């Protein structure tokens, strides 16, 4: 079926809106809501025509390939520019921000242009990386793991960061002090359990993780696991309002204490 380009784009946008496949990451969180899906025209056509089904599978594969292309390897740059510039270049290409030691935050320009002055910083370690909202995945983390003196890493709202990626962070254990995972839809308590390698961590942000089943309990267990770290986000105390009434057991104990 030779669909003209305009039709393909229309179909792709429809697909992005309505499909619950890889794009619908909320499916990981609330699978019950997928049962009540309403059938769109595309889904109806897919069930009846092989061409439509093949087209939709092709579009899905294209989305996956796009993410893989964004995370392609720049490790060939390592011999010439060194690990710090390679890692920083990758982060900037992805749309994130990077901070070298003693420098200001560097970001790519609006059109993705990266200043060539980054080549001069080949011996300056990178101290902070912010890839919030970028499509970094497991392969892309190769470049971040090159930055052996990284102090702060922000993976907020990254849609492809999951438990496998968290298990990969142990080489940064020597230097990483701050890690933020707020809003990552695929991170669950099983991945958070692998952070025990990061003994130098001082601040861990785990707010708004939809895939974690018991946020408050996970928070407590993480605090036990990382005793020197301040865990922020899913605290058990934050649900209590100030001036809350004590539980019935406590109040009855208090009353018996008063009366005796």
């Amino acid at each position: 079926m030779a669909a003209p380009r305009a039709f393909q784009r229309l179909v792709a946008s429809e697909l992005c809106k309505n499909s619950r496949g890889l794009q619908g990451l909320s499916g990981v969180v609330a699978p019950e809501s997928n049962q009540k899906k309403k059938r769109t025209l595309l889904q109806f056509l897919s069930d009846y025509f092989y061409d439509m089904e093949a087209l939709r599978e092709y579009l899905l594969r294209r989305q996956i390939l796009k993410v893989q292309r964004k995370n392609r390897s720049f490790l060939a740059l390592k011999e010439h520019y060194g690990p710090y510039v390679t890692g920083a270049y990758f982060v900037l290409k992805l749309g994130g921000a990077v901070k070298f030691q003693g420098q200001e935050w560097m970001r790519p320009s609006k059109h993705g242009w990266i200043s060539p002055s980054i080549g001069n910083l080949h011996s300056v370690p990178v101290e902070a990386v912010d890839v919030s909202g970028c499509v970094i995945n497991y392969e892309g983390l190769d470049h971040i793991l090159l930055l052996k003196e990284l102090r702060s890493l922000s993976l907020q709202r990254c849609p492809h960061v999951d438990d496998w990626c968290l298990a990969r962070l142990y080489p940064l254990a020597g230097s990483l002090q701050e890690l933020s995972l707020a809003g990552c839809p695929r991170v669950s308590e099983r991945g958070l359990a692998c952070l025990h390698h990061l003994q130098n961590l001082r601040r861990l942000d785990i707010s708004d993780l939809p895939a974690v089943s018991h946020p408050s309990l996970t928070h407590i267990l993480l605090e036990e696991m990382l005793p020197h770290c301040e865990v922020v986000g899913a605290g058990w105390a934050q649900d209590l309002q100030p001036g809350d009434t004590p539980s019935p057991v406590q109040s009855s104990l208090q009353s018996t204490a008063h009366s005796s």
Partner: protein
Amino acid sequence: MPPWRGKVITKVVAECGALRGSGSEKLMFRRALQRGLRPGLSFRRLGTRRGGSTLDWDGKVAEIRKKIQSALPGDTWDPLYDTSHLPPEHADVVVVGGGVIGLSVAYWLKKLEKKRDAIRVLVVERDSTYSKASTVLSVGGIRQQFSLPENIQLSLFSANFLRNINEYLGVVDAPPVDLQFNPSGYLLLASDKDAAVLENNVKVQRQEGAKVCLMSPEHLRTKFPWINTEGVALASYGMEGEGWFDPWSLLQAFRLKLQSMGVLFSQGEVTRFVTSSTSMETSSGEQVNLKRIYEVHVKMDNSLEYQPVECAIVINAAGAWSGQVAELAGIGMGPPGTLQGIKLPVEPRKRYVYVWHCPQGPGLETPLVADVSRVYFRREGLGCNYLGGRSPTEEEEPDPTNLEVDHDFFQDKVWPHLATRVPAFNNLKVQSAWAGFYDYNTFDQNGVVGPHPLVVNMYFATGFSGHGLQHAPAVGRAVAEMVLEGHFQTIDMSPFLFSRFYLEEKFQERNIF
């Protein structure tokens, strides 16, 4: 749906009884039926309703239509009776066994076929509830810490597969696959006498690309303070790609993907292979009978009915019962000592898994710990529950005819070793237990993959003795390559072939527990 339509239907249904069996009026009745049910004639479009009717007219119409169509005589090409529960009469590949290995072989056959829909694959599974299948009763671990490089490669590929599961098994419109993978790693402990072997194994593993590190007892104590390192000389810890996951989700993901790829599933038991044989002469003048299976008899549950399925290739992925399936093909029915007399040495062995609760137990970072005494345990969930077990020695092997759990085994053989290794486990309370089968290869505890030398179109993918689940994706690919190309392409699995039983070359895997 407009109300007059309902009236037409009821009138038609009433006349159905009167008109049954009569000739020309039946034609008129049929036309009236079609006119009444065809949507084109209604003056409202599909999907619009007057008000919010909760009478479910569409469902009722569908039911009545079905009733009428079953009452009328069928078309000339309908079968005499309903055969929808039977497998098809012809299939290219019949996979015996619908566990994770069988489904993996079917998946890779469809994925690596040269043209779309070139191969018709039929998966035959005896028990659709999977009540005794090793896949779903498994603890679900995956590790790269093996002693043989081929096993390490299989695990590495399978870990890659599980990591990118949505790329492999993603279906459009289905929710993303969630395996609930815990990347916590495996911790293998070794005593003084095994320390050299462990070190050697770790060297091989690192060469193959697994991320494993060695730990001394002091290191263990700092990292895992709940461990008692008495008697431990060395430990190996897997950092990446090791852990445990939910095998049921993997099985369901495979099923959904296979259904979308057009693989046929059938519930039934394989009771007979019909073979044809040709006689050939070896270079030394000996006569060899080569057999080909050309028909598989699939018997339905609770019935004598069976369907002969004509096939080209049979994959034996029946797990703990592969030995019985192999005997049906005549493997092992010959004078002992000859190639015809070698049976498939796979038999079911029962293993217990116990779940206990220990409130002061090891924390969230606990890996799957495998002790010197062959006891293993891992954490389960967030609530201080743990599960584990122990491989019994040859003398203590339990009876594999049923899946009853022996609780005394825990009291006598498992708990003492657990309490020695982790003192917090002195106070624990067993919550539940279950038993499952290993498809145990009595020869060398390693898988059997590849064709049989005499029954030329039966391919084995079985005998993994407790590590089938973690090798399933890679083994499936290897068998598919063997079937489609004739040789192994990505991982060389020639040491796993059946012929090693005749040549008595043990391909022993030492890290089994």
